[in-house]
C-alpha cells in the first residue's frame, strides 16, 4: 500500500479521535441553546478529559484485571472502528478487515466488555446497568442488520467503502427504501448511544440510567478513556449513517487526491454540524421512555427497516 493511503488511513483515524469529543460538545451546546440555557464551551469535553487524566484512580477493592483492561479495550475497538468506517475516503487499506456486519460485531464486543466490567465489582447498580445495556443491544442489533440489508440490496455489498462507491457511481437519487431505513437507523443510533429517549447521558437518576450505571465504579483515566470511547462511538455511528445515507462528498476510489480529501473533510464537518443540531433537536423534543417501553421503540425501528426492505423488493429497483 502506498504512503498516501497510509496517510489517508491515519489521518482519518486522528480526525475521528480529535473530532469525536468536539462533536459531543457541539451537541450539548445545541441542546443547551434549544433549552435556552447558557451553553458550556465547545471544548468542555476536552477539559473534562484532561482533568480526569490527571486524577488518581480510585480502584474498588474487588476489581479484577478485566475491570482495568476494559477502558483500553473499549477505546481500542472504537478507534479501530473509526479506521474501518469511510468517513472521508473509501480507499482505506484497513477497511477490508471488517465489513459492516463485522463492525456491528466489534461494537458488540465493546458492549460485552463494558457490561462484564460493570458486573465485576458486584454492586447492585453495575449489574443492573449491564443487564439493561445488553437488553438494548439485543433489541437494536436486528434492526441495524435490517438497515444494512437495505444498503446491501442497493449496492450488493456489506463493505462500507464499496457501498459508498456504488452510491456515488449511480445517479444522485433518494431511494424510497433508504428513507425508511434511514429513520430506523437514527432510532437505533439514539438507542445504542445512550441518548434520549432510551437513556439520558446527562442524568444520574439511578432507576432510569443505563450507561452511567455501568460507569459508577470508574474514575480518572479509566473514566476518561470510556467517555472518549463513547463519544467515538457516537461519532462512528454518525459516520456509518453518512456512508449509508448521505455519501456525498466522501472521496471515492480513484478520485481521492489531496483536494478531494480536504473537500471530504469539509463535507464531513458540515454534516456533523447539521447532524449534531438535529440530534439536539430530537433529544429536546422527545421525552425519555420508561425502560420497558424500549422494546416497543426498537421494534418500531425494526419494523421500519423491514418495510424499507419489502418496499425495495416490491418496487424492485
Amino acid at each position, binding site marked *: 500500500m502506498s504512503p498516501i493511503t497510509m496517510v489517508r488511513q491515519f489521518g482519518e483515524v486522528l480526525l475521528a479521535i480529535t473530532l469525536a469529543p468536539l462533536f459531543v460538545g457541539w451537541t450539548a451546546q445545541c441542546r443547551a441553546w434549544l433549552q435556552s440555557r447558557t451553553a458550556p464551551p465547545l471544548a468542555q469535553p476536552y477539559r473534562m478529559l484532561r482533568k480526569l487524566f490527571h486524577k488518581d484512580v480510585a480502584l474498588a477493592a474487588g476489581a479484577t484485571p478485566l475491570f482495568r483492561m476494559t477502558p483500553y479495550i473499549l477505546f481500542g475497538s472504537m478507534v479501530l472502528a473509526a479506521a474501518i468506517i469511510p468517513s472521508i475516503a473509501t480507499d482505506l487499506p484497513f477497511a477490508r478487515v*471488517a465489513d459492516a456486519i463485522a463492525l456491528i460485531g466489534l461494537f*458488540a464486543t465493546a458492549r460485552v466488555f463494558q457490561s*462484564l466490567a460493570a458486573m465485576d465489582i*458486584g454492586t447492585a447498580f453495575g449489574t443492573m446497568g449491564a443487564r439493561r445495556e445488553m437488553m438494548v443491544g439485543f433489541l437494536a442489533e436486528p434492526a441495524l442488520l435490517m438497515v444494512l440489508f437495505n444498503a446491501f440490496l442497493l449496492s450488493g455489498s456489506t*463493505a462500507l467503502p464499496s457501498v459508498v462507491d456504488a452510491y456515488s457511481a449511480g445517479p444522485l437519487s433518494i431511494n424510497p427504501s433508504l428513507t425508511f431505513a434511514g429513520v430506523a437507523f437514527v432510532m437505533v443510533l439514539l438507542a445504542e448511544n445512550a441518548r434520549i429517549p432510551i437513556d439520558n447521558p446527562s442524568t444520574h437518576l439511578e432507576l432510569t440510567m443505563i450507561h452511567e450505571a455501568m460507569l459508577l*465504579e470508574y474514575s480518572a483515566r479509566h473514566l476518561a478513556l470510556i467517555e472518549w470511547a463513547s463519544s467515538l462511538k457516537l461519532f462512528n455511528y454518525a459516520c456509518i449513517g453518512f456512508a449509508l445515507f448521505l455519501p456525498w462528498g466522501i472521496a471515492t476510489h480513484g478520485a481521492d487526491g489531496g483536494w478531494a480529501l480536504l473537500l471530504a473533510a469539509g463535507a464531513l464537518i458540515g454534516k456533523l454540524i447539521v447532524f449534531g443540531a438535529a440530534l439536539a433537536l430530537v433529544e429536546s423534543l422527545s421525552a425519555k421512555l420508561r425502560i420497558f417501553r424500549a422494546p416497543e421503540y426498537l421494534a418500531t425501528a425494526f419494523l421500519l427497516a423491514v418495510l424499507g426492505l419489502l418496499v425495495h423488493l416490491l418496487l424492485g429497483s
Partner: protein
Amino acid sequence: MSHPGWVSRGVVLLQRHDLHWVLLLVLGWLFLGAIGLLRPHSLRFVARGLFPAGAVLGLGVALLGAVALLAGQAPQAMVLPLGLPNLPFHLRLDALSGFFLLLMGVAGAGISIFAAGYFRSGEGTAPGLLGLHYHIFLASMALVVLADDAYFFMVAWELMALSSYFLVVSQHRLPEIRRAGFLYLLMAHLGALCLLLCFGVLQGGKWQFTFDAMRGAPLAPLWATVAFLLALLGFGAKAGLVPLHGWLPEAHPAAPSPVSAMMSGLMLKTAVYGMLRITFDLLHIQFWQWGVLVLVLGLFSALYGAIFAGVKTDMKRLLAYSSIENIGIIFTGIGLAILFAACHLPLFAALALSAALLHALNHAFFKSLLFLATGNVLHATKRRSLGALGGLAHTMPWVATLALVGTLAIAGLPPLNGFVSEWLLLQAFLFTPRIPHPFINMLVPLGAAVLALTVALAAYVMVKFYGIIFLGQPREPALAEAHDANWLERIGLTWLALGCIAIGVLPQIALRATGAVTGLLLGQTVNLSSRIWWIAPIGAKQASYSGLLLLAGIICVVGITFVAVRILAHGRFRRTVPWDCGYPWQTSRMQDTAEGFGQPIRHIFGSAFDMERELPSPSDSAPRYRIHVEDRLWRMAYVPIARAVQRLSDSIGVLQGGRLAIYLLYSFLTLLGLLAGVL
C-alpha cells in the same frame, strides 16, 4: 495447496492407508475401554493412565481426518467381514466424514485430557466401567461417521446412544438423574426408529442397504420427501431440534461435566453429519420446501434455546439450552443450503453450508470448554445454581480466564471463532433475495433478523453466565475456599480455548476444510482468497473479514493507548471500597441475581413460558422472591402424549378382565369373524 516437501511426503504416506489407520485408532479406543475393566476400581490406572492415551488417539484421528480432508484424494472404502449376511459392515472415509473425524478428534482430545484430571473416586459408577462407556462412546461416534451402510450406521448410532446413556446415569442413585437418562434413551430410540424407516425408504425396495447403492437408486419425489422427513425427525431428535428437544436440558445437566461436553460438543454433531449425509449425499434431489422447513425449525430452535438460556438459573441447564440454540443456528445454515441448492445457486449453498459446518466445529470447541469449566466450578463449589455462585475469578483465575475466551466465542464476538461462522451465515442470508420464488425471497430475509436477535441474545445470556459465576462478590462465604483446576484440567481447557482463538483468527484454514466438504456435496466451494489472513467467501467487493488483522489492530491500539496514557498522564491508583450509594449496609446478597438477569427476557418473551411467581408482600418481615419458569412445549407436546398412552393402556386393561367365559367369547368371536371373512 502448497506444503513443504516433508509434509506432503508424510501426507502421502498417511493417505495410502488412511482408513486403516483410522480404524486402528478407533479399535484402540475400544481396547482402552476394555483394559479399563482389568482394574475397574483403580482411579489412578483408569483416569491417569487410559484417558490421556485416549486423548492421544483422538489427536491421531483428528490428524487422519485432516489428511482425508485437505489432501483431497478420492474417498477410501473398506469392508469388514462382520454384520448381516449379504450385508457386511462397509466403511468409507470421504471429506464429509473426514471433517467430522477432525472435529471429534480435536475436541475429544481436549475433553479426554480434562477428564483424566476430572473424575474423582466414589462418584457413582466405578472408574473402569466409566472408562469403558466413555471410550465406547468415542469409538461409536467415529464409527457413525465412517459407516457406509444402513445397518452399520444404525448399530454405531444406537451404540452411541447406549454408551452415552450409561454415562449420563453414572450417578444413578439420584432418581432425577435416572429420569433424565430414561427420557434421553427413549427419545434417542424413537429417533433411531425413524431413521430405520428412513433407510427402509432409501433401500428402494431392492434391499440395497449400502450407501453406494442408495446413491444410485432414484426415488420418486414423494418417497424422497418421506425419507427426508423421517431423517429430519430422527436426526432432529438426536440434535435436540425444537420441539424434539425435551431430553436435552435434562440429560446434559445430569451427566458428569466431561460427558456433558462430549454430548453437547460432539454427539449432537453426529446428527448434523447424518442430516448432511442423507440430504446432500444419499438423496439425489432436493426441494426448496425442505429447505424452508429446516430453516424455520432451525431458527425457531435457535431463538427458543436462546430465550430459555436467558431465564434458566442452573448453569449446566443454561448451557444445555444454549446448545439447542447453536444447533438451531447450524440447522438454519443447512436449511439455507438446501434452499439454495434446490434453486440451483450452488455458490450460495456452499456459503451457507460452510457456515453451518464451521459453526458445528466452533460449537464443539466453545461449548465443550464451557461445560468443562462448569465442571470445575461444580467440583470447587458443589453448587450448580447461579444464585449461589459469584466472584470465582479471584479464587479460580485459570478457569475464569479460559472460560472468558469461551464466553466471548459463544457470544459470537470478533475476533473469536463463534463470530466467523455467524458472519458467514448472515452473508448467506444476504443473498436470499436471489431465490426465484416470490414470498420466499421476501420472508427469508426476516430469518436474518431472527438470527441476529438470537446471536445478540446469546451475548446477553453469556454475559449473565460469566458475570454471575466469575465476577462480582461471592454470594456465599463457602466460595472463598474454591480451588482452581488441576494441571490436567488446565491442559484440556487451554487446548480448547486455543482452538477457539485459532479458528477465529485464521478462519481461512477452517474454510479450506469446509470447502473440501462443500466440494464433495455440492461440487462448489466458496471462493478462497489466496492470502491466509483474509476471508472473502463471495468476493472482496461484497464482503471481507480478517480476524487476525482485527486482533492485531486491537492489540496495537490498546498497547499504544496504554503506553501513551502512562507517558502523558500517570499510572497511580489506590484501592478503595466500592461506592455504596449512601447505603453502607450492603451485602453480597444484594447483587443482581440470575433471576434478575432473566427478568427482561421474561418480560419480552413472556408468552413462551409457564411461569409461577412467589412475590413478597410489602409488609413481609423476611421477604422471599421465587420464580419458577417451565418449558411450555413440555406441557403442550410431551405431557399429552404420556397421558394418551396412559389412558389407552388403562382402557386396554379391560381385555384382561379375568373371566374365562369372556376369554372364550373372544376366541369364539374371532373364529366366527374369520369364518365370515373367508366365506
